[in-house]
């Protein structure tokens, strides 16, 4: 079974953009998530990443990213609620716990945990969209002139990860198919077997790379698909998002305080930053093909 995060080539703007443009665009969304703690802006960043993924056709990756991000967010809320007793509004007094000491669950601690969780959700969804929409081959090709050995290692790893995942699935099936009279297979022998198999696979993949001429010192030609007509759009949106985020930060758009009591700034700067960040999720929108205006006239001629 394919991983929902696996790259799927599609004729969509985000997939067609150069790796630099796609990284700049998604990176701008992640930067906002790490710069801000205001839940409204963080929700906007998460919405932008989700929208971008959906418009790029990476529904599976968005779904899996949201599932993973929300699980992590829930964990952060629970942990923060248990380990932080600051805040004025106590919801429950849970007494003394080993290691944690006195545990008072406050609304402020829950909201603070939620803020951290939203950062995780936005970042994970953005990384999921990156993983499903940006061709790792093109990223590695871009890196190869800068760091040949690292690119070779990354190429081997990027190929071995799906192969090892498939091998692990097969080994799990074989373990399930063993007769009840055969020795039970623990996780350790399975892991050892997977590792040994991966080494064999690595040798095979390395042999293929050798045959493809990876070890040659020939001059690297410029990549054919280095640029795309969508690059400018993604760079521009990334720049707008970053400038807006920094300006907003300076103008107090990140007005958010959890302790001792919750104060969320919802002034015009915050609303403007949230709106611009959320709208940036529309960047991968594909414009409908323009109909040639002279088509009928040509037909008449």
């Amino acid at each position, binding site marked *: *079974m*394919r*991983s*929902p995060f*696996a*790259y*799927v*080539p599609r*004729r969509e703007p985000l997939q067609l953009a150069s790796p630099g443009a796609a990284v700049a665009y998604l990176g701008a969304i992640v930067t906002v998530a790490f710069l801000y703690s205001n839940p409204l802006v963080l929700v906007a960043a998460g919405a932008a990443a989700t929208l971008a993924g959906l418009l790029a056709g990476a529904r*599976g990756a968005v779904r899996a990213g949201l599932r993973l991000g929300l699980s992590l967010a829930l964990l952060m809320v629970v942990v923060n609620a248990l380990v932080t007793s600051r805040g004025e509004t106590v919801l429950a007094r849970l007494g003394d716990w080993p290691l944690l000491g006195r545990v008072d669950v406050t609304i402020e601690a829950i909201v603070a945990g939620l803020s951290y969780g939203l950062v995780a959700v936005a970042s994970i969804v953005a990384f999921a969209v990156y993983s499903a929409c940006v*061709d*790792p*081959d*093109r990223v590695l090709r871009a890196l190869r002139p800068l760091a040949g050995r690292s690119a070779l290692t990354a*190429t081997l790893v*990027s*190929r071995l990860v*799906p*192969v090892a995942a*498939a091998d692990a699935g*097969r*080994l799990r*099936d*074989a*373990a*399930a*198919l*063993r*007769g*009840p*009279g*055969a*020795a039970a*297979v623990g996780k350790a*022998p*399975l892991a*050892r*077997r997977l590792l040994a*198999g991966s080494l064999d*696979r690595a040798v*095979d*993949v*390395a*042999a*293929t*790379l*050798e*045959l*493809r*001429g*990876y*070890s*040659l010192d*020939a*001059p*690297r*030609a*410029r*990549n*054919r698909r280095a640029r795309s007509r969508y690059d400018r759009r993604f760079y521009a949106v990334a720049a707008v998002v970053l400038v807006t985020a920094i300006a907003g930060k300076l103008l107090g758009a990140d007005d958010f305080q959890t302790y001792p009591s919750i104060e969320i700034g919802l002034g015009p700067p915050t609303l403007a930053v949230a709106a611009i960040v959320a709208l940036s999720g529309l960047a991968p929108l594909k414009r409908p093909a323009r109909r040639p205006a002279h088509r009928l006239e040509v037909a008449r001629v």
Partner: protein
Amino acid sequence: MSELAIRRGAAPALAVEGLGYAYPHAAGRALEDVSLEVAPGEFVLLAGRSASGKSTLLKAACGLVPHFHGGEIEGEVRVADIDALATGPGELAAAVGYLAQDPETQVVSTTVAAEIELPLEMRGDAPTDRARAVEEVALALAIPHLLDRATDTLSGGELQRAALAAALVTRPRLILLDEPTSQLDPVAGDELIWLLRRLNEEWGVAVLLAEHRLERCLAAADRVVAMEGGGVGFDGVPADFLAWAHEHDHALTPPAARLFSLADIDPLPIGVRDAKQTLRGMGIGHPPHQASRRVPHPHPQVLQAKGLWVELDQGEETKDVLRGIDLQLRPGERVALMGRNGAGKSTLLRTAAGLHQPVAGKIAVGSIALLTQNPGDYLVRERVGDELPGEQGMAALRIVGLEHAIDADPRDLSGGERQRLALAIALAGRMEGEQPPGVVALDEPTRGMDRSRKEDLVALIEQLAGSVDFLSHSETKSTRGTAVVVATHDVEFASEFAERVVLLGDGVVIADGPMAEILVGGWYFATEVARVLDLPGVVTPEQGAAALRGEGG
């Protein structure tokens, strides 16, 4: 051979002289004093039993031996006049392409286009030249529609073509192929062989093809080189090879040639067309083919599937892999499950073994042992006895004939023994005393097997099935014995072990009947003897020879 005439005077595509080689830490030598030459534009078939040195010779011709594998080497290997022992595989890639058996480890890029383009990029070719070369090789191999596909979404056949395209994109003078059809269904396998022949004729690429299923490619070859114990046992034209194989190694004789030798007809045919011409010359006609009928399924049954639908998640989408399958198996039946890649054979067996749950319909099976396509996946310990402890383990070892190997390391066993050990692991604890479970299922067990190993497997299947005679399909037969169901692409193997064939197509049963009826009258899912004679019920060389002797008399 016209291409040879055109390119006469050019250096040989491959020249090997006195080649000897031993892998690092190996007890024996893999190659011993090998000398051969492949002319430009020649199509050479490399025959031989398992471990006879075919793969090692191909690796020496592309530079992987010794540059990648190490070891001790002597002699001379020249590819298009380049010294392969002094030049690495990367530099040799311009002159020689290599396609190994397992396509999964031969792709290193995420998309087909990137995979094909990679060797040119490594060579430093200009983007426009790369674009044109990728387009041309994609057109030649009929895969332009695959260029934008992710490599991990391709079927085995598609992946094999993508890897072949990457090997051909540099326009090499020689292409080396190591059992490229072993994982392909008969349709994809035949397509690949004739694609190679077309490339050979139109592009002038010399082909050196190692293959076990000689009946698939003998007719396409200009010459045959047979390897024996690391050396060259025979080197000559296909017609002479058949005579040599008949004398020296019966396991290398294709079915049509075996048919003729059993029927005392000369000369031995190198393919179906050749055989038909000879028979026409003898005035032997072909009665019309009779349509197959379904086998009746009297009770009791050891497996019963009714309206079985199975849906599999394939990443971004789900697919109905089985669509309303009805199937019954009786005790002691030997059934071949056939069909194209992706037809649903493996999914059906895995569903019977409980690895998949049906979304509709039901499947009832008492006790089943399933051996999947990679027996090595079952072997996780370093001693046979540790894999199969206790009396149940010993009983399973006895039934596969490996009780003597209890202290051996599974890695020291031969390929056939490892397969039997894996089967014993699947059987252990599912047996009633010394009796195997109700159903034993094997998924593609003959990949990479030579004929002698297949004969051993047929004997094991017959032993498991309890040698119950179901050939007449009467309802008075014994109800004991294990039903053995084997998913296979190997039509000749199916004709040797099966009494019934179930043919799947796109998740549905498209034919179900006695083997002697199903494997006759088609083109892809028919044995070579059936294609030669087209006689109802005649699928094996022995049956064919008997029929010919009857007609002749």
